[in-house]
């Protein structure tokens, strides 16, 4: 299907996952991720896959673990609270190098720390992708399965309420990613070979477990991912006096606000990290060398700003121009997510010494 269709973000991501070969989904109903479970319940059986409505989030990630460990592309989705429940399994299946794809449909942007630092134990990282549109979410869903298997590392896609429930025109381009090597690590039944173990505790070879070696191999893997997999969207940087950093759907609002600021004579640029991990630290470091001020717009108490500050290392002031913002229900976006508000905050922190062109 290369035609364009109008779909809600959640459904589009689910369809994209199926197009990418996802054949197992387990989830638990929780707003605003529930529609993914609903879509998978109908669509996966149509393609010979299995969708499980698990009795808890912990069981959902367990089922995905089992399916992915057998070499099947498997996925789960939840929101922050459910992702909290899954943390032990996240940490351990990352140690076991099992490639699962997960979606956090956040209620806002308050789960940045949980996602990037990991709420689980140990030295694991998830590759984190943050779409800003339903179409980008479709493409990142495809990318997620590819990256997960390429690196044998879990991947998480950060959505939010706007992604989940906003309908946009999307199309599903065929995958152009190169073929990956066969999954010799997958558990298939030991026909024609010695039995292997897929474990967080050690390598597959029988008769030995070397926990120290197992845990240390991530260091090289993480370093390689940081070199190869950074993705970022930037604009209006060449002459910028103020650069605003934002991720996810708020990034679109910031992009629009930057254009409006330019109409008013302020030279504003933007950086929208698409990979939250690996974070585009080098891009921001380069900007910090030549831009008088940087601002961070995020709908939380200040989380991504720490990664920005780490990249800037004091070479430019970093202003927080976002904040916690929910509607009265706690599920929906609040008043701070508005172009007018962002523009006002840009005006507040725009460098005074800079000339207004």
């Amino acid at each position, binding site marked *: 299907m290369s035609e364009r269709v109008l779909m809600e973000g959640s459904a589009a991501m689910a369809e994209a996952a199926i197009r990418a070969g996802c*054949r*197992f989904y*387990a989830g638990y109903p929780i707003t605003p991720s529930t529609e993914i479970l609903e879509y998978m319940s109908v669509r996966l059986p149509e393609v010979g896959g*299995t969708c*499980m409505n*698990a*009795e*808890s989030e*912990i*069981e*959902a*990630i*367990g*089922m*995905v*673990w*089992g*399916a*992915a*460990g*057998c070499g*099947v592309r*498997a996925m789960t989705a939840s929101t922050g609270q459910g992702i909290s429940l899954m943390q*032990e*399994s996240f940490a*351990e299946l990352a140690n*076991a190098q099992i490639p699962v794809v997960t979606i956090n449909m956040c209620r806002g942007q308050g789960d940045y720390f949980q996602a990037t630092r990991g709420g689980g134990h140990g030295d694991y990282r998830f590759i984190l992708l943050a779409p800003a549109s339903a179409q980008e979410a479709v493409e990142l869903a495809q990318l997620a399965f590819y990256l997960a298997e390429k690196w044998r590392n879990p991947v998480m896609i950060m959505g939010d309420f706007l992604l989940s429930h906003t309908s946009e025109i999307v199309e599903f381009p065929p995958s152009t990613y190169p073929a990956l090597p066969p999954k010799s690590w997958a*558990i*298939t*039944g*030991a*026909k*024609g070979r*010695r*039995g*292997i*173990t*897929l*474990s*967080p*505790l*050690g390598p597959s070879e*029988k*008769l*030995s*477990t070397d926990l120290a070696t197992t845990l240390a191999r991530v260091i090289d893997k993480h370093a390689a991912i940081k070199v190869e997999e950074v993705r970022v969207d930037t604009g209006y940087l060449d002459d910028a006096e103020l650069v605003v950093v934002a991720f996810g759907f708020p990034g679109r609002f910031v992009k629009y606000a930057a254009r409006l600021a330019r109409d008013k004579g302020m030279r504003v640029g933007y950086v929208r990290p698409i990979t939250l991990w690996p974070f585009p630290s080098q891009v921001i470091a380069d900007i910090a060398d030549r831009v008088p001020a940087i601002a961070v717009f995020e709908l939380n108490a200040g989380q991504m700003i720490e990664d920005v500050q780490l990249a800037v290392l004091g070479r430019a002031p970093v202003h927080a121009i976002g904040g916690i913002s929910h509607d009265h229900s706690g599920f929906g976006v609040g008043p701070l997510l508005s172009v007018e508000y962002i523009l006002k905050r840009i005006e507040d922190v725009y460098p005074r010494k800079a000339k207004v062109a």
Partner: protein
Amino acid sequence: MSAIPPAGLRTQHSGLQKVFSPTDLLLNSEHSLCPGCGEPVALRTILELIHDLGVRDRTICVAGIGCYTAFPMIMDVDVMQALHGRAPSVATGVKRVRPDAFVFTMQGDGDMISEGLQEVIHSAARGEQFTAIVFNNAVFGETGGHMTAATVLGQHTKTSVGGRNRERHGNPIKISELIAQLDGTAYVARAAVHTPSAIKLTKQYLHDAFRSQLDSKGFSLVEILTMCPTDWFVTPDQGPAFLETKLIPTYPLGVIKS
């Protein structure tokens, strides 16, 4: 082998056939479990059955966390190592995507009946087509002797000091009887490995449980009472008597559902 044949028989055992040796599916006879532990005996019967039923090539074991976590490295079958209490959900994912695989979990009582009670109940209710096996020694062995949901009344552990007391520590959960109540469960039996006849029963019940999976009858559970002299605070040779007198009154052997 440092064999010590009796005087009077030639050392080549001429005319004698080897009638028993540890199964080939055991990659190494050496393991780090305690003297007198019952779990290796249970493991041996499981591996022998996998061999006898001819299902080795499609066997996937999902292991929990306990002393038996040392077993995957000596089992010549594919094993997926899960988290404490979480083997049933992993086994569900495995069996759903590989329905032709022969799937069983290997868990302890702390793993299945404490941490993972929810998981095994849901798997049984759904009638997932795998066999759950629990090595029940009524104690957390690996951590050094602490109370589980299966510790029996009067049993001393480091967290039921002086003996499990109903008022202070509550009552044990009989997992076989609990699981047998659920629609979706096809076979539930409780066996033990403290005597040769009990070991024979263990093998019979495991066979019937495996058979019910191979015939796609539903969820099956075999509870195997195993000795843990270390965390029963007795000597290894006292393990079988402790099992008989302290565990079996709470956990009678037999087929609970078939």
